């Protein structure tokens, strides 16, 4: 018996996709297998590690706990859609300057969690930053630098915004 598939229209990183997906398929598998966006990582597949974090309508979610069919008519953003065409996002820039990653496997999820925080809050507290990444495991030990990168990213973002206003 061939699995039944459902039509889903979802915007991913600004592009519309019309997909036929099995109702049981997660957003994570759909991103990785159907759209070949493999920056989003599959690690625990049960909401314990945060490596699969993406944005749905601007909110950070675990894509392994989100069904693809739930995203019909919604906007999804992945790590591949974070950097502007001509450079890096302030969070990515801050990760380089604060040395906030080592092996790089949890990194996309960490960046997506911080990006979601900064999308809604230009001036987060240290607690806000820690809470934002509290669901993202890192085994290499980059945590302290990730928190520092979160603070720097907020500064860089404000500076960018102010320079845009000035222009």
């Amino acid at each position, binding site marked *: *018996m*061939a699995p039944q598939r459902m039509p889903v229209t979802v915007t991913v990183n600004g592009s519309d996709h019309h997909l036929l997906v*099995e109702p*049981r*398929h997660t957003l994570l*598998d759909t991103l*990785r*297998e159907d759209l*070949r*966006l*493999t*920056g*989003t*990582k*599959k*690690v*625990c*597949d*049960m909401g*314990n*590690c945060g*490596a699969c974090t993406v944005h749905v309508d601007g909110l950070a979610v675990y894509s392994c706990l989100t069904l693809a069919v739930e995203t019909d008519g919604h906007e999804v953003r*992945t*790590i*591949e859609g*974070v*950097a502007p065409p001509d450079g*890096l996002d302030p969070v*990515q820039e801050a*990760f*380089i*300057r604060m*040395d906030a*990653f*080592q*092996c*790089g*496997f*949890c*990194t*996309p999820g960490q*960046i997506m969690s911080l990006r979601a925080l900064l999308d809604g809050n230009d001036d987060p507290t240290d607690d806000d930053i*820690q809470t934002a*990444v*509290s*669901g*993202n*495991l*890192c*085994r*290499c*030990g*980059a*945590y*302290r*630098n*990730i*928190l520092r990168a979160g603070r720097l990213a907020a500064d860089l973002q404000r500076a960018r915004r102010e320079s845009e206003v000035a222009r």
Partner: protein
Amino acid sequence: MVATEPRELRSVGQRLKRIDSPKKLTGQERFTGDLRLPGMLYARLVGSPYAHARINGIDTSAALAVPGVAAVLLAADLPIREGENPLASDEAIYNGQPLAIVLAESEAIAEDAVLLVDIDAEPLDPVTSIEEALREGGPQTRFSAAHVDEAEARLHNSDAGAAEEKVLPANVTNTVDYRRGDIAKGFADADQVVELTITSEQVHQGYIEPQVTLVAPSPLGKLDVYTSTQGMFVVQNKVAQTLGLQASEVEVHQMPVGGGFGGKFGLNEAMVALAAVAVNRPVLLQLTRMEDFLSANPAPACEIRVKLGGTSDGFITALQADLTFLAGIAPSSPLGIAAILVGGYYRFPNMEITGQEIISNRPKSGAYRAPGAQQASLAIEAAIDELARALGKDPMDFRLQNCAVEGDERPNGGAWPRIGLKETLEAIREHPIWQEREAIRQRGHGVGIGVGGWPGGLEPATAVCRLDADGKLTMMLGSVDLNGSNTGMAQIAAEALGIETDDVNINVGTSSSAPWSGSTGGSKITYTVGAAVQRAAEDARKQILEIAAQRLEASADDLEIADGNVQVKGVPSSSISLKQIAELSMSGDGGVDPVLGRGASAITQAAPGFAVHMAEVSVDELTGETTIHRYVAAQDVGLAINPALVEDQIHGGVGQGIGWALYEGMAYDDAGQLMTASLMDYAIPKAEMIPNIEIILVQVPSEHGPYGAKGIGEPPAVPGAAVITNAIRDATGVRVTHIPVRPEIMARALDSAAAAD
């Protein structure tokens, strides 16, 4: 803090940014699990539901009927030529052991089919604990002929002091026995004797990227193996042997590793290769997190008893230690390393160290960052603290008075080479937290210190480099970068050649194209491959200078490389650029050999590394929860090639040490079922569990490493549990001897201490 000031360095010693940043921050880096090939099948494993069972039969018909399932392979289906079959057939020997491999067009289909494989099995008594293993007439790990991989036993027991042949009891696979002096006299001479037994649970490396391998049979007859491994050449040999191929018929593509920590030295590659050959299609196996916990080489549980005596003038007179490691199904524990380190940090005039390795119905053990050292440090550092207290000595002064220095004898014979233990202890002694510990105690907090050591790793290595047409240098290596070592390699090459680090490309080749190197692990990559890189760059420099000398009509000795040019020293006008030299060497009428530098290293003396950590903690008397307020890590790193990356390694080691100390343990029930097979049940520290870490780099240069560098990955992961339990002792007066110190264990210890008062 720098013990000797090296010559002026330009690239080495700089805090340069990681060279692999952009790809890893934008999702562009391709890890093994991100690869897809035409015709590729997804593999899922059918694991044993029992820790020990007789398998009467496996019915795959229902699974095979699922649309999209290409094959369900059993042990007999694998074209194995040599070694143990990765699939069990008549006997399962641990919970989760692979019995069958389902291959399907998608992962979801494979998962569906796994549930339909019918296993007819009869559970048998498992060996699940030290007590059960040693019980007279107790269970055996296998009903089939006791199978001990003797080559492996020798490998793991290579440092053991047990010289004479002896018959070991059932389930015991290795022993150690190191003796020095007269132990009875040593204890008779002591004014105080302390005794304690520490226990630690089985833990997992917890790399975020699961074990993952993709194998593709090529139409030309060879096998392409794409895998997340710390040892590409180890994998090449193992796959070739298992399938009866020449090593040259197996090309291992070293993929980026999403965390290894000792756990990725060739686990599933041979199994995946067998499956791919069986169906003649590419096969991808990425373990689920549960499969990873169930089957992927964790670090073994252990129990160490220590008895230590000392005199009222502050000298240790005798050490007696007995170690027991509960390994998995085959000899695989770090018993030998633990034994050497228990008796290695201090001068013990009289010593008796014994130990045994026991096998059990658990997955085969693996290495986890400084294998054996954490447990050894916990045991000896707890005993040293208690002995200092019993003698009324300051625990720092007591350590400084007794710590090993260059020339002191190690338990397994041979003297320590140049080590920085004493200097590192002194660095912590001068820290304000140590100086102000009385005031800290007034606040109800405690301060603890602990030593962590690592003997250092050795394996030969080679490197090859070429001058590219653009005047930059490409350095080719055969060892993978786990956490930033390639950035350090670029700095070493730039330093040796005299160019900018940005002008060095590091290229890790495949097992068919790369120069040979040992595996990445044991804190040896910078020490050994780094030395080869330095020599290769120096060789290239020599060739470049010779070409330039010819062109500039000068002696090579009078030339220098600066700003991308070779010039006569002090005469920039008489120069030729590296780009011009490259172009000349690549043109038909240049008449100049292209520049190809080679470097090799076969260093035979390791550079042991020592870390001394200090923590300030408090314990909630009601809940038993331990809070780490401040953490200081001092480490002798020889010379920091890139201090920022060295500090990152220390951050990581401290985090893992805190995991050992407070959070991590793999629990099995009496039937040998793993009860902590997810990241919800197995607690890897989260951001809020790791305090700020203050780092002090001590630099006592090594004699053979590049620019004096030592391996730095292992030591920072060692002292955590010792430091935190010593700090808990300082804060509460209670000595906890079991790790992890979960709140309930701590609360119970506080209750029994209160009841005893």
